[in-house]
Structures are given as C-alpha cells and as structure tokens.
C-alpha cells in the first residue's frame, strides 16, 4: 500500500464529493457565473447585428439610473418586509395552536397545510377571482347585494399591492408554521413544569421559555421566507402583470420582462444578478445570526 490510511480516506471522501460537486457546478455555479458574464454584455435579441458587445459594468451603471428598477426594488423590499413579517407572526400563532393537544389536531394540522400545497399559479388565479370587481368574494362580503358599490380592488394601485401581499401571506404562513412547530416540539415538557412550580404565568412561560428556545426555528423560517419572497414572480404575473400604474412591479417580474419580452439578455441578467446579491447578502446575515444564536444555546 503506497498510501497511508488517512490519505486513502481523504481520496474516498473526495470521490464521494465529486459527483455532487459536478451537479452543483452544472446546475448552480455555472448558471450564476454565466448570468454575471451575460450581465456585462449588451445583447439585444431583436438586433443581432449589434452582436454581443462586452461593456464591462455599463449595464450596472444603467441599472442605478433606471427609475423603474428603483421603483420595483422598493416594491420588492416592501413586499418582503410585509409578507415575511405577517407570515412569521401568523406562523407562530398557527404553530402554537397546532402544538396544543386537542381532539382532531391531526385534521387541523393537515388543513393548515392546504394553502401551502396549492401551486402558486392556481392560488394566484383564485385570489384574482376573490378580488374581482364584479363577482369577487371580497366585494360580496363587504357589500353583499349592493352591486353598485362593488370596488375594483385590483384597479387601485394601493389595494392591488395589498392584494398580492394578502395572497402571499395566506399561502405561505403555514410553511412558517411548519418550521416553527418543529422548533416547538423539541422543547422538553419538564422545563414548563419547573416554570409552573416556580409560579411563572403562562405569558412568562411564553416569553422566557418558548420564544428563546424557538429562536433558531424562527430565524430559519425567516431566512426561507425572505429568500422566497425576494423571488416573488408568479403572484404578480397572474394577478396584476405589474399594474395598475406599475404599482405591483417587482424586480423579478421586471427582469423577466426585460429578458423574455424585450429580449435584452444582458440587461435582464443584470437585474437577476442584483436579485441574487440581495438574497445572498441577506441570507449571509441570517446565517450569522442563526450561528451565533445556536452557539449561545450551547454555552
């Protein structure tokens, strides 16, 4: 045997990693790097005569002067803040409820997950009907048979934005609940018992025991939801197409329009790269927070 045991084990380890690495490179690293490469070109599909001019960071400079991009970035951040905030809040409430023991809990747990299991496209179409100005459920609830006062929710820039937020919160709160529930289940019962013996109120138990102990789960839910919310596309595509008055235009939708409708491959990629860096930075921040949180737990 020419190699020592340790060397051979290293080889073995590398051998196991290589296939995965190949896969990840092919399906994650390559597209990301290629997007960055494209984002430094001026490519107009409808004007192939211009060729693929390498323009360094021109697209990025243009992006920073693009009012529509700025507007959709603000929209995206607003969407992320509102949806993740509400989703974590509702997720926590749902998780606390379905963590309790009661008759029919299994059924409730399954029912809670239904919105999350519906494909977003279908859910968006459903919410579009719910907010419809002539036969929508929202109008029926508010105005009943007073058809004359029915409001066209999706025709109003403010309410249209609210509508996509509501649709997203409805759809994914249960996903947050699922993650938080997992966190709740690892808290041992005797901690609560000890607290009760010491005379802690239910509220004190919640703020002093439950919340600190599910912090990692909360952060993970937050991480997943933030990254997901940044990529919001289908809701906008189905419900509003970015309108009215561009009020629901978000970054991913804007990038999609640039790339697929207008054929600006370079500029569209620039927007994708921006979205990538935004989510990447935010997830790094979260991961640091989760890491430090876990470490304190162990200490």
């Amino acid at each position, binding site marked *: *045997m020419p190699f020592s*045991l340790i060397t*051979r*084990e290293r*080889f*073995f380890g590398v*051998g*196991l990693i*290589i*296939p995965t690495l*190949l*896969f990840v490179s092919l399906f994650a690293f390559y597209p990301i790097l290629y997007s960055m490469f494209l984002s430094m070109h001026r490519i*107009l*599909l*409808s*004007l*192939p*005569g*211009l060729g693929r001019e390498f323009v360094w960071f021109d697209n990025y400079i243009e992006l920073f002067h693009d*009012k*529509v991009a700025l507007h959709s970035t603000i929209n995206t951040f607003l969407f992320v803040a509102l949806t993740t905030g509400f989703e974590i809040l509702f997720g926590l409430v749902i998780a606390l409820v379905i963590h309790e023991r009661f008759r029919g809990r299994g059924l409730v747990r399954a029912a809670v997950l239904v919105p999350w299991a519906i494909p977003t496209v279908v859910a968006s179409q459903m919410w579009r009907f719910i907010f419809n*100005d*002539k036969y929508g459920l929202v109008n029926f609830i508010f105005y009943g048979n007073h*058809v*004359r006062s029915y*409001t*066209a929710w*999706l*025709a*109003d*820039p403010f309410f249209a934005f609210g509508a996509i937020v509501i649709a997203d919160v409805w759809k994914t709160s249960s996903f947050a609940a699922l993650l938080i529930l997992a966190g709740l289940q690892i808290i041992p019962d005797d901690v609560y018992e000890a607290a009760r013996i010491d005379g802690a109120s239910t509220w004190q138990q919640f703020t002093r025991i439950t919340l600190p102990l599910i912090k990692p789960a909360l952060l993970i839910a937050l991480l997943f939801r933030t990254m997901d919310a940044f990529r919001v596309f289908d809701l906008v595509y189905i419900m*509003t*197409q*970015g*309108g*009215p*008055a*561009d*009020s629901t*235009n978000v970054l991913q939708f804007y990038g999609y*329009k640039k790339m*697929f*409708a*207008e*054929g*600006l491959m370079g500029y569209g990629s620039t927007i994708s790269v921006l979205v990538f860096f935004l989510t990447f930075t935010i997830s790094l921040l979260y991961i640091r927070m989760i890491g430090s949180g876990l470490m304190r737990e162990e200490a």
Partner: protein
Amino acid sequence: MKVDKLMWKSFFLWSLLTLLMLLFPLSSCTNKEHAQKTLKFVTWKPNQPAVWEEIYRIFEEEHPDIHIEREVGPHSSTAFHDLLTQKLKNKSTDVDVFFMDVVWPPEFAAAGWALPLDALFSQDRQEQFLQSTILANTYEDHIYGVPLFIDSGVLYYRKDLLEKYGFNAPETWLEMVSQAQKIVMEESEQGNEIYGFSGQFKQYEGLVCNMMEFIMSNDGSFINNDTGKSNITGERAIEAVRFVRDSLIEKTAPRGVLTYQEPESLDLFIQGKAVFHRNWPYAWEISNNPSKSRVAGKVGIARLPHFEGSQSYAALGGWQLGISTFSEKKELAWKFVEFLTSQRIQKLFAVKSGKAPTWKALYNDEDVLKANPHFKSMKNVFLTAYPRPLTPLYPSISNILQRYFSKAISNTDTDIKKEAEDASQEIDRILSMTQ
C-alpha cells in the same frame, strides 16, 4: 484495500448515474423517421375550436402524408410571445409554423427567427391581400409572414338602447360620453344597472391599442414621422390621455376596466351591463350568439368615435403565419401556411367564426357578407387601420407605453405631462439603438 474498492465502486456508480441523467433528455431526439411527416404548429387556444378542427381535418385529408401537431400556447399575445420567442431563441427545431401578432414581424425578421418568404409568397399572391396587412409583414423590403386574420378596433353599442333614447351611433367621443350618461341615468331610475363604456385598460398590450386610438383620433401620435422621435408629450396626445382619465374611467366606464383585457370587457357587454364597448371584430359573433350573450340581436357596430375636428383611427391588429428559420421541413411548412391562408379556408373562417379575412375578394363574397353583414361597412375601417410603431424594438417601447398609460389613467392626481416626458425620454433612448 476495502476502502479503495468501495471508493471506486461508489465513484463509478455516481459517474454512471450522472452521465445517464445528462444523456436522458437527448435520447428522445433520435426518432427521426416519424418526425419527418409531422409539422409542428405553435398556435393559441382558439375561440371556436370546432372550426379549427374541421380545417385541420380538411388539410390532413388532402395531405395524408402530413400530420399537424399543435402546440397550444396561451391566449394572451404577450404570454404567447414569451413562449414562442423562448423556443426560437434556442433555435428549436420543434417549431415549423407559428402565429405572429401584427407587431412582431419586424422583431422576428431582425432577429433572424422568421424565414423570408419572398420566393414562396409571390408578388401576385400578395396583391390579393389587404395592403395594410402585407405592409405589417414586410421589413426592409422582405416579407416574413402571411396574414390570416385582420383585426381593428371597432365600437359595439346597444342598438336597442340607443334607439329607445333617439340616438344615432356617436361620431365623437364627447357625444358618446353624453349619450352614455343619459342612458345610464335614465336606465338606473328604472332599476336597470348599466355602465356607459367598457374597453381594455389593464397594464398590457391592449392598453397601448386603446390609447393609440384615443390619441390618434385627437390628431396626436406616438412617434413623430418627420423626426422619428417620440411624440407622446404633444399637447394633443396629452389631451386625449387626460380625457380617458377624467371623462371615461369611473365616470363612463367602471373603474374595473383598469383590470380588463378583452374577455372581461366583452363579458360586461354581453351581460347587458355596458352601453358602448370597444373591441376587435371577433366580438361580433360572440355578442350575437344567443347561447353566450344576453344582448344577442341588440348589438350595433360602428367605427370608433373621434375628437372634435379630427377623424377616427383604429389600431391595426391581426394574426400572421410565419415559418421558423430553424425548421427542417420548410417546404411542408409552406404547404400548410399556403393552405391556411388560401381564399377558401379564410372564407370558412369568416363564415363560421366571424374572423375578418385578409383576402380582399372575400369582402364582396355573398356567403361571407351574409354571415357578417357588418363587413361591408367595416371594410373601410379595416383598410385604414393604423399599425403600432414598426420597429424590432417594439416590445420595449410597448412596455414603456404600458407603464406610462397605466400611471396616467389609474390615479386622478398624476402629473400626466411629467410622466409623458419621462416615458418619452426612454422611448427616444430605445429608438436611438436602432439607428
């Protein structure tokens, strides 16, 4: 030793798996024999599928060796464009024949996606078609598509209601608004809830068509023909936009029109909830079909109104057939295109589905006119329908216009002038790329 063996075994297995997964998608392309006789047609979901079925049947009966395989795309022009260009961008051989909206030929031509048809689509044959439709398919002196249907904006109205109040079809927009107001008021006193107008004002391509008609019928335009630059900041154009915002939306039309594409707006009309309705010619058959419409037989059709001192303009729409540059069966593809756009098949479409043909002679055809009596008076509207800007960068310009118009008409306190200036700058920047 044991570790080594395991390592190589697992490495080998993993690599094999990886390879298999990579090769798998490729293996489906090898079945050439069968593909030879199949033509791939990218189309949208038709309003009257039965007519299409009949036409496919005729073609396959006459050409038993060719099978038409349809790929049905979304009905929305914008969504269909995304699907189709995605395939063409990838030089997919999976597309032989495809539909093009009237605004696409310059883009498809410049991008090298649509095959130039000069050799196949003879000059003599071209002369049989309405001229505006041929122009829309021509880019830098080559022809890239064969027009199948022509569309142009027209005004539908409730004949019964206008007669009841002693009105004729309105000539000007102001006249239309005042007629609508009177009818809506009197009807609602009798308990009949109805709106004055319905059209397409969602932030999408149809908004551009609708707004172009308002602007041009006020002597405005999108692009200044002399300078080749954006003209939407012009006084006349802004006046027309302001009219739509201040006199139509929420006053004559329900605010919901800001979310309407064609189907929703037509729905309002055929439910008997709108006095006036702007749409394309296909709405005639549907609104007069008693099984679909509550106002069948009570519908009138007229050219669109205009502003005082100007004249009517209708946006040119319509669908063309193109052949993909990447098709491996271009000759078969032409056979199919020639068949679909032939006089007899266009006649069938016109008689059975109310689609307006592009073949000139059909506007004097007795059967066509019997099924579509309005074609006689509408022929001039079709002949004068005005195209949207003919440039390969039209999708970009359309997106800018959609944003601008939607902003301008959704809020009553928007500074239209300023929004127009912003949009105008963007349009000029895009236009300068082509020069």
